[in-house]
């Protein structure tokens, strides 16, 4: 067949059935439809806005807002502009999201590991937690924390005082006793472990653990936190949690400098240790050294500089408390709700990630002579993390997006301030909603881009 004949044959296909022509036709149709929709929307919006006498554009940005916001991380008052209110809202969103992400990660990992625990009761309790939390709407949980738990707290003048100083001394004594008993039980357990009498082991372990639990509880609740609070004044009431407000004195910059130095030092030490291990096989105590550098060094400088922090204690007046740092109940409720909810999801991700590492990996590590601790640290966790991190990031994004539920309990986040109050006052729905969406979209897309980069870096390199 000649070229000309072949060309003739292809040309015989009707245009209607040519996939290329069809594809172009479909796309042209869709494009025309979308253009039509956008055109209609814009013209209608312009007419409607004209009729309702609503301004367009971002002229309102520099207008005085006239409303107050109780929680603002930057200077803000009713005479500030709408633009300023936007930043206040954005910062509040980022504040609750970042604290929430950290706490939810810890809680989620703990519960995820607990679900795989060989301890039956712990595994079952964490299963109940996960099932209940994941199957109840977040909004309902937020309303519960806010309206049913935090709102019924007493009024400021009847604040719950967290110190209970009078309880301090006897509890310190009881705690010390329990701790001693616990230690004794533990040593007994250690000794009994070598022997063959297992009933004694069990009895000792139980005794020791009861005493230790009591001691820990006693120390936590009375000996430690509350005794400290008793001297400094922590109040709980329906206006929130009132803490002493720290303010930096001269010399605090040194502590910050030491912290920065410590971080850099820890990082350098880590890379040095890794290089040395790769070259010689010798290991260095990276964790311990980092702890010393990051926590120890600033602490040392802090005390050497004469504790350059001043605490402003809240004072009781007749009906109210004055001074101090007020943590608003809206913030607390939102934080508790977001953390407990997201932790339920993170727990499942962690569990799935650990289960995804095949048993052969653990067995092979044991066969190489690694003990359970190093097996977990060097073999299981690095492989589990590869499975865990992508869905974990999407949970972080979910938490950030879910923080917009703040509007239901009145926490002044971006949505509450901007899409709520500013939208109501200016009526400029298009600009306000679009800007709010843009903020969330930016956060999401940035995280997604970072994740793609991270995944590419951590991807399994095969053959």
């Amino acid at each position, binding site marked *: 067949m000649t070229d000309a004949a072949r060309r003739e044959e292809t040309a015989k296909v009707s245009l209607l059935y040519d996939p290329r022509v069809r594809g172009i036709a479909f796309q042209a149709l869709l494009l025309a439809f*979308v253009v039509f929709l956008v055109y*209609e929307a814009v013209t209608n919006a312009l007419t409607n806005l004209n009729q309702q006498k609503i301004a367009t554009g971002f002229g309102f940005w520099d207008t005085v807002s006239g409303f107050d916001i109780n929680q603002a991380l930057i200077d803000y008052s009713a005479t500030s502009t709408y633009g300023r209110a936007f930043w206040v809202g954005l910062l509040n969103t980022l504040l609750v999201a970042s604290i929430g992400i950290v706490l939810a990660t810890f809680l989620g990992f703990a519960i995820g590991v607990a679900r795989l*625990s060989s*301890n039956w009761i712990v595994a079952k309790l964490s299963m109940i937690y996960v099932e209940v939390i994941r199957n109840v709407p977040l*909004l309902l949980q937020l309303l519960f924390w806010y309206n*049913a738990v935090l709102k019924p707290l007493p009024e400021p003048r009847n604040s719950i005082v967290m110190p209970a100083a009078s309880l301090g001394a006897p509890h310190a004594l009881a705690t010390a006793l329990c701790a001693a008993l616990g230690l004794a039980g533990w040593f007994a357990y250690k000794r009994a472990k070598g022997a063959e009498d297992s009933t004694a082991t069990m009895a000792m372990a139980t005794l020791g653990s009861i005493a230790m639990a009591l001691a820990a509880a006693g120390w936590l609740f009375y000996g430690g936190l509350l005794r400290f609070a008793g001297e400094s004044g922590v109040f709980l009431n329906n206006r929130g949690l009132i803490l002493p407000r720290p303010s930096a004195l001269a010399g605090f910059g040194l502590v910050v400098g030491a912290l920065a130095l410590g971080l850099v030092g820890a990082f350098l030490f880590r890379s040095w240790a890794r290089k040395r291990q790769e070259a010689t096989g010798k290991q260095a105590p990276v964790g311990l050294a980092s702890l010393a550098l990051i926590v120890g060094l600033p602490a040392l400088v802090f005390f050497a500089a004469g504790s350059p922090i001043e605490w402003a204690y809240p004072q009781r007046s007749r009906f109210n408390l004055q001074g101090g740092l007020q943590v608003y109940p809206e913030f607390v409720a939102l934080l508790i709700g977001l953390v407990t909810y997201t932790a339920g999801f993170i727990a499942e991700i962690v569990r799935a990630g650990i289960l995804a590492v095949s048993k052969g990996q653990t067995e092979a590590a044991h066969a190489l002579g690694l003990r359970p601790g190093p097996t977990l640290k060097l073999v299981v966790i690095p492989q589990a993390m590869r499975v865990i991190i992508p869905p974990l990031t999407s949970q972080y994004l979910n938490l950030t997006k879910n923080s917009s539920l703040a509007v239901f309990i009145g926490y002044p986040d971006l*949505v509450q301030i901007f899409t709520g109050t500013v939208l109501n006052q200016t009526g400029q*729905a298009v600009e306000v909603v679009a800007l709010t969406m843009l903020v969330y*979209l930016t956060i999401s897309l940035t995280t997604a881009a970072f994740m793609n980069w991270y995944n590419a870096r951590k991807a399994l390199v095969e053959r």
Partner: protein
Amino acid sequence: MSVAYLRREPAQALPPPTFARGPVAWMREHLFGGAWSALLTVGSILFLIWTVPDMVRYLFTDAIWSGGGDLCRKAEAGACWSFVRQNLPFFIYGSYPQPHRWRVDLWMAIGAGLITWLLWPNAPRRSLGAVLFIIVYPIITYVLLSGVSATPGALFEKVPTNLWGGVFVSLLVAVVGIVFSLPAGVLLALGRRSKLPIIKLFSVIFIEFVRGVPLITVLFMANTMLPLFVPEHLSPDRLLRPLIGVALFSAAYMAEVIRGGLQAMPKGQFEGAMALGLNYPKMMRLIILPQALTMVIPGIVNTFIGLFKDTTLVAIVGIYDFLRAIETRRLDPEWAGGTTSTTGYVFAAMFYFVFCWGMSRYSLYMERKLAAGKRR
């Protein structure tokens, strides 16, 4: 000749373990497997002793089962179940007029029947059920709930949407989301995997945009921007706006789930279908989609769970869903104060839990069933 280090008699047999099986051995292994485990067990038991009796007292023995709000305001009162009992009609129907409530009941019954048909794996003619659910049921919904007749006293008299409320509105929002998101999700997923650049671009933009913003902002957009975008006489109903928002939102999430199914299809299925001479629509309808959708049923159900929980957010644009109905009544002066808030929330939690947990069990069941063929 004797070597000192050579053993002469066999080593003594170790004594048998004291308990190898039975409750004590089980406890030793599962509750006291080590010091740390024992500590956790004791801590957990202390926690249970601390919480469970109080919870039982609150929910059952001290609970108020009948009577007015005054009883629930007493200091020692437990859960205020009489609050739930007396307001139950409002929680289910909102302010929907009394003589027409049978329509809501009928609507729920038909919906329950159709959903059972669809979810039951061995039911006959499930494709017919799907058609009924996606095409006929929305019409039934409109006729039954909204009504068609303007004359007062008619069988299907119009009921304005501002009277709608309670459980049935929550279910309505969920059903609209489900019915719309499945077909729209399929189209978007196909669009995203399409070779045609413009179609692919629009699908990607829509999906990523919707998934990148919180539902609340989508609802705000539907509520405040949608009326601006259409001519004034076409301005959508107050209830319709969040329904559109929820539908678009769930479609984007559904699209990603379905795309997962499409991507998991082996290439041979596409090639086989094309070798048989099937064109694109036929290939998708007869070969690819039935398999891909079946594969992702667990994912689809999980999306429904999320959607059902998210229906609570429509309250932000003034819709009286179930949770909002409870919020209204718990602040009612007759009931406000005392334990009504907590009781209302516990009741709502139980309602949502039953639905969501049921769905998640179903999804697990399907997962096992689907994996059965692949198990060796």
